[in-house]
């Protein structure tokens, strides 16, 4: 009989008092290509981390790797979140850091990172080129890691994994942040890897899967449950719509009919121009969709509105009726808006508990540093209740599944009921049910005159309230349009 490549027996893992995995047994045989799906919070990421030895566990996990194969006998893991360090080996970054320029490099460049990886894994540097092309990294080589967006970090990790071609490849959410074409390309590579003898384990609920996938599973009650097809894998329970807390049903206070006014915005880093001649106005009550490929300048544009970009001082920008650089502080700007983005999530203090996380929205800080007043306490409790996060109030953010972390950060953006909401790919990493729930909340808020800027990829689910759309391409405005037939326009 053939030995399983991965053999897991009686695996038990606990987070504090709760057991996530309980006497889990699983075998992965040569030639099997797995999808592990199922709702958020069932223990998928925990299992993947245990397999690669990043978590302590009870039970046994053994591997039968082939030392005579041309593929390196390693188990490689691509996490959902890539954690890099700076040149001094620590991770004490802040999320606006990529906009602040310091002559000395803080982190490695993409090129140096790949060189290191080649040296550590004894890979030929020439072989990486095709993967760089597929993921659009040719022009990124000299960029520092700190300057990449979270989507770009994910792709850089994929480049390394595909280049390495390990005997077992575990990827948590391989498609996050990828556009349609990149997904197709990636699936083709997965098929090629499978042909070469790589065992794949993909954690994903995506509909598009590589052809090579031939086994399906999910985790229920801490144990592996086999399925015949991905259609059989459970979905999360659709969440019941609840009425918004009373204070969020009131229209927000509007400080000026024109919230954002930008004229001829130009932003460049050295030779590289990131935004070119942007003119844009956001009026109170409008709901904008902002789209564009990775690197088209969306996040930079939003950082100008949020007070996070130093070059805002050299551009003609009016925010909430005041000219930028006329003696206002960034905290005065942030008071008007609530923001969420994958990057903000990445940098947020994972040691803060859920209650502190949401309450930090009152002060726009990245953890809670101040005491709450009575009214703020009340609002916090209402929001916790609304998002079903009451039980998690005292748990640290880092101990929760990604989906719940996102919900907490969404709650953080609305708890002070700001006049402008900036939601930059808020559903990245959420499953379908969570995304739907999330967008329903946005639609409910929008009925009360909420102004909105929403960044979503072309394929992602979007709230129905969107009434304006702007598309960026290579730092320039490609199109601006009013969205009339909402559903039709958005589904293209």
């Amino acid at each position, binding site marked *: 009989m053939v030995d399983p490549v991965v053999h897991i027996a009686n695996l038990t893992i606990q987070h504090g008092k709760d057991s996530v995995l309980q006497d889990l047994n699983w075998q992965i045989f040569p030639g099997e290509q797995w999808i592990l799906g199922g709702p958020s919070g069932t223990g998928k990421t925990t299992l993947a981390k245990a397999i690669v030895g990043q978590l302590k566990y009870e039970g046994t996990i053994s591997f039968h790797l082939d030392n005579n194969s041309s593929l390196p006998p390693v188990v490689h893991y691509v996490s959902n979140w890539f954690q890099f360090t700076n040149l001094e080996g620590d*991770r*004490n970054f802040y999320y606006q850091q990529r906009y602040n320029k310091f*002559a000395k490099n803080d982190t490695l460049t993409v090129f140096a990172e790949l060189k290191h990886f080649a040296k550590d894994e004894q890979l030929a540097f020439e072989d990486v080129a095709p993967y760089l092309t597929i993921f659009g990294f040719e022009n990124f080589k000299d960029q520092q890691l700190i300057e990449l967006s979270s989507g770009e970090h994910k792709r850089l990790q994929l480049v390394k994994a595909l280049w390495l071609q390990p005997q077992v490849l575990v990827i948590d959410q391989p498609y996050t942040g990828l556009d349609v074409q990149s997904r197709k390309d990636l699936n083709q590579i997965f098929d090629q890897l499978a042909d070469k003898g790589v065992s794949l384990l993909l954690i994903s609920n995506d509909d598009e899967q590589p052809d090579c996938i031939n086994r399906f599973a999910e985790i229920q009650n801490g144990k592996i449950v086999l399925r015949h097809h991905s259609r059989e894998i459970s979905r999360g329970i659709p969440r019941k719509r609840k009425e918004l807390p009373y204070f969020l049903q009131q229209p927000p206070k509007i400080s000026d009919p024109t919230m954002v006014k930008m004229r001829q915005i130009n932003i460049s880093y050295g030779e590289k121009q990131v935004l070119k001649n942007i003119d844009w106005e956001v009026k109170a009550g409008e709901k904008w969709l902002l789209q564009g490929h990775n690197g088209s300048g969306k996040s930079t544009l939003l950082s100008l509105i949020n007070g996070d970009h*130093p070059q805002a001082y050299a551009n003609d920008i009016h925010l909430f009726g005041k000219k930028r650089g006329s*003696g206002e*502080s*960034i905290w005065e700007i942030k008071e008007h808006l609530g923001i969420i983005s994958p990057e903000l999530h990445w940098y947020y203090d994972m040691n803060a508990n859920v209650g502190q996380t949401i309450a930090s929205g009152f002060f726009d800080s990245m953890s*809670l540093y101040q005491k709450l007043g009575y009214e703020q306490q009340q609002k916090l409790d209402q929001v916790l209740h609304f998002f079903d996060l009451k039980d998690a109030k005292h748990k640290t953010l880092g101990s929760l599944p990604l989906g719940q972390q996102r919900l907490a950060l969404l709650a953080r953006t609305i708890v002070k009921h700001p006049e402008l909401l900036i939601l930059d790919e808020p559903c990245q990493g959420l499953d379908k049910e969570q995304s739907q729930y999330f967008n329903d909340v946005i639609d409910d808020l929008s009925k009360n005159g909420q102004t909105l800027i929403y960044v979503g990829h072309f394929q992602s689910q979007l709230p129905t309230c969107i009434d304006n759309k702007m598309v960026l391409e290579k730092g320039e405005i490609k199109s601006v349009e009013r969205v009339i037939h909402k559903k039709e326009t958005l589904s293209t």
Partner: protein
Amino acid sequence: MANYFNTLPLREQLEQLSHAEFMDNTEFTDGVNALKGKKIVIVGCGAQGLNQGLNLRDSGLDVSYALRKEAIEQKRDSWKNATDNNFNVGTYEELIPTADLVINLTPDKQHTSVINAVMPLMKEGATLSYSHGFNIVEEGMQIRKDITVIMVAPKCPGSEVRAEYLRGFGVPTLIAVHPENDPQGKGWAEAKAYCVGTGGHKAGVLKSSFVAEVKSDLMGEQTILCGLLQTGSILSFDKMIEKGIEAGYASKLVQYGVEVITEALKHGGVSGMMDRLSNPAKVKAFEISEELKDIMRPLFQKHQDDIMSGHFSKTMMEDWANGDANLLKWRAETGETAFEKTPAGDIKINEQEYFDNYTLMVAFIRAGVELAFETMVEAGIKPESAYYESLHETPLIANTIARKKLFEMNRVISDTAEYGCYLFDQACKPLLADFMKTVDTDLVGKNFNEGKDAAVDNAQLVVINEILRDHPVEIVGRKLRKAMTAMKAIKTV
């Protein structure tokens, strides 16, 4: 120029040394108003200069940078830092005459030449700010009488000043007004507004004086912060090699050990650090740290005496004039030590192991922190100032050793600190020679608890715990840490 402190009568010396008041939040309700609409010109655009400027601008203030002509023409890093972040940059001649507040954030050693260049250009009644008082107190720089002289000194590296600000917090900051230069009585209002502009008011502000800042800062950096960390690291490493501990392990234990151990100081002071040890190890660490205190006390006192008399700054300035001959020699010697030259091994050492296998360093830290604190307080410095310059800063400096060993520590700290650190190290090593002969691998390199009975005497443990917790550095520390509870952990390995 004469040493300013030495020109003062004893009564005035004592008065200025004793300035140390932890400021209440309510003192900062006026925000940045005292500087609103005024023109702020920062001289120097390194890590402190750039990051403080970014914070001040983001607080709604008008900031530009004055750089030397050569720095602009040759597009040096300081010029790039300022222009890449869209600041207005100009020469001294162009910008200083327009400034209401000139902030000097150049390295200490350049202060005399910078101030000599800047002062004649400053407009009548403007304000000059320092982040360290060496130039005023030790070099005796005389500032024009119409100019207000203040100090705002964030007690963290520049990158932290920026990072904490953007997180919505700040870093602990010390502020002062020079009594000889406050003709309009606006000094405190402007120092407070500047402090708010950098976010410092959220993390605890100590109202100090130029004299208290200099005399305590010099003492701390020479003894516990840099000097003893260097001596302790080198001696510990050499001992492990002598006793046959694997070099890669020894190097890693020393390089990262100080950081992990002093992280405990940040949360619970000296007693918090000692509590990380098993009971028998705590008793042992207590005993040897008592011994270390006895051995090193005269050296700590000599350093404090030389700082007070001005002897230290005088000899150091002589070395400056001599092309840094001593500094460069000592720097090279440090680079040649076995610890510096042995890379840390690729071995996993878990957090508790750093305590269990490095009890010697715990003893060094306790002895050094308490001695520095005691010596400063005996010399007339207030406990609050002494706390900042001993216990509070130790983890920050230990962090630099974890990065790239002693080289990194000595590169990051000021020239003054580096000079004082070597001076201490030269004297301390021979002093500890006999003591080190008694040290074996149970104190450094191997688990102290291995093969030992975990029993301790109740009464003895109670006495030791009381002595640790009742030390004045713990009493003032508890009070000050409460005000800084929200301060984020600086880093994780």
